[in-house]
């Protein structure tokens, strides 16, 4: 199944030069994380003496301009989503997104909460998801290792998908962000409607769909 994805992206398959560059990219990942979700508490032990992620060249950065890696640490509310999208768009390519815990995958325990979005992949491309509520630092570091392998293999190309299918992503973003404007009458949460989400996915570009299936299989 993974081969199929690679095959789909064959037109952007990496050259030898690109693979050299990918080595540097994987060995020097600078993170940007907004500590808005619960997963933020797993990061300090991952960074400091106990698990020491700096041995992989990873470290925190202050602004999206400088960062390579966007961490979505746990549940993501609609309000935060707006900031996340702006930050993601301010990051420079190549850039990667890691979703922490169940919430960015399917909403987790907040699946029916009105201010929380359920499927992060509908709005920005996710390169790596870590299941669990919350994942322990070991799992976090394991995920980073896997992400490094994918970067080296040229498979972590979410940013290319985003650029290619910007229309689809923007449409989804607009659909949910429009709600952040003040409304007086009670409204229906479009994203709690499984049928609607499924219809959005049906519109999704083939590559994005396949990426989703890869994840669900894994």
């Amino acid at each position, binding site marked *: 199944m993974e081969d199929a994805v690679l095959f789909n992206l064959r037109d952007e398959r990496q050259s030898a030069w690109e693979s050299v*560059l990918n080595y*540097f*990219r994987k*060995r*020097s990942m600078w993170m940007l994380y907004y500590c808005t979700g619960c997963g933020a508490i797993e990061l300090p032990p991952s960074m*400091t*003496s106990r698990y*020491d992620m*700096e*041995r*992989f*060249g990873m470290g*925190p*950065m*202050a*602004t999206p*301009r*400088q960062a*390579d890696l966007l961490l979505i640490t746990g549940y993501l509310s609609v309000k935060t989503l707006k900031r996340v999208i702006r930050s993601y768009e301010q990051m*420079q*390519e*190549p850039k990667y997104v890691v979703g922490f815990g169940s919430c960015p995958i399917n909403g987790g325990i907040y699946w029916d909460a009105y201010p929380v979005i359920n499927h992060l992949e509908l709005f920005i491309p996710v390169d790596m998801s870590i299941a669990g509520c919350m994942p322990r630092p070991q799992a976090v570091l394991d995920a980073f290792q896997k992400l490094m392998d994918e970067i080296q293999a040229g498979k972590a190309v979410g940013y290319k998908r985003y650029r290619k299918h910007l229309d689809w992503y923007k449409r989804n973003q607009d659909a949910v962000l429009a709600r952040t404007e003040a409304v007086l009458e009670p409204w229906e949460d479009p994203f709690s409607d499984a049928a609607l989400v499924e219809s959005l996915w049906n519109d999704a570009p083939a590559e994005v769909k396949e990426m989703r299936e890869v994840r669900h299989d894994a």
Partner: protein
Amino acid sequence: MRFLNMLPQLLGVSFLAMGLGLLLMGLGRQFTARLQRRVGPPFYQAYLDVLKCFSKTSITHGFVMDLGTIMSLAGLIATAYYVPFVQWTPTGSGSLVIILYLMTIGYLGMAMGVSASGNPQAPLGIARALALMFGYKVPLVMVILAMIVVTGSSDLLAIANAQQGGPSNWFLLKFPIGFVAVEIAFQAMIGERPYDMMIAPAEIASGPMVELSGKYLGLAFLLHSVQLYVETALIVNLFLGGAANPATFFGKQVLVYLTSMAVNAVMARYRIEQGIAHLWKWAGSLAFIQLLTTKGGF
């Protein structure tokens, strides 16, 4: 014609300065990690970081940002041409006034480039950096003046040559008070704790670097590496007698830098006015005493 002959040497020194500076950065990070009982990044981590930065796309806010970024690194590299490495400079001169002022064009370039980004955090960081510069330049210059009084030369080559013949001739022993003053100033010059208020990532979002991305950040990294090379070499030449071979020279540079990193690892950050006041009060008065005792009057 003489200038053309100089070109290969200039090229060599450029890469030497950047290479050694990045190595210093890597060693410093490794050292800090060991102090904190971590494994830490490999010693070549800084090279990976810079190459990664250059491989990324980047944003610019206009020609001033490009110009400033180029000017900054160019200024620092040009300074490296005047700083003796093993009693030798490619330009044949080690004028201290040139070194002190050429470094400034690096800072001006940096300041200009980041201010042009339009993010107010950047000039905020720069204002702090310059205010700090107000604090450390004066003690540094006073100690250097004391050396000029003794050696009768404002050429760093001559000052380093005056210390040949073993550690007993080092100015470290001749100017012990001045050495302490310059060490304090050095901590501020390279912007390590307790003088890291211009970067302050959690406070002003890394100040000057806030809008730097991709190759701009890479150039800023190189700027810092050359700055480390130049400033450690300055101290090695001023106090530690230069060196007879490259390995010893670099060894001394590492020693100077790691000392500062050790302080960095255990200190907290000053507020900006506390920082300047501290520099003037301690580094300044020590340097003043050094200069007064050396000169023996006004």
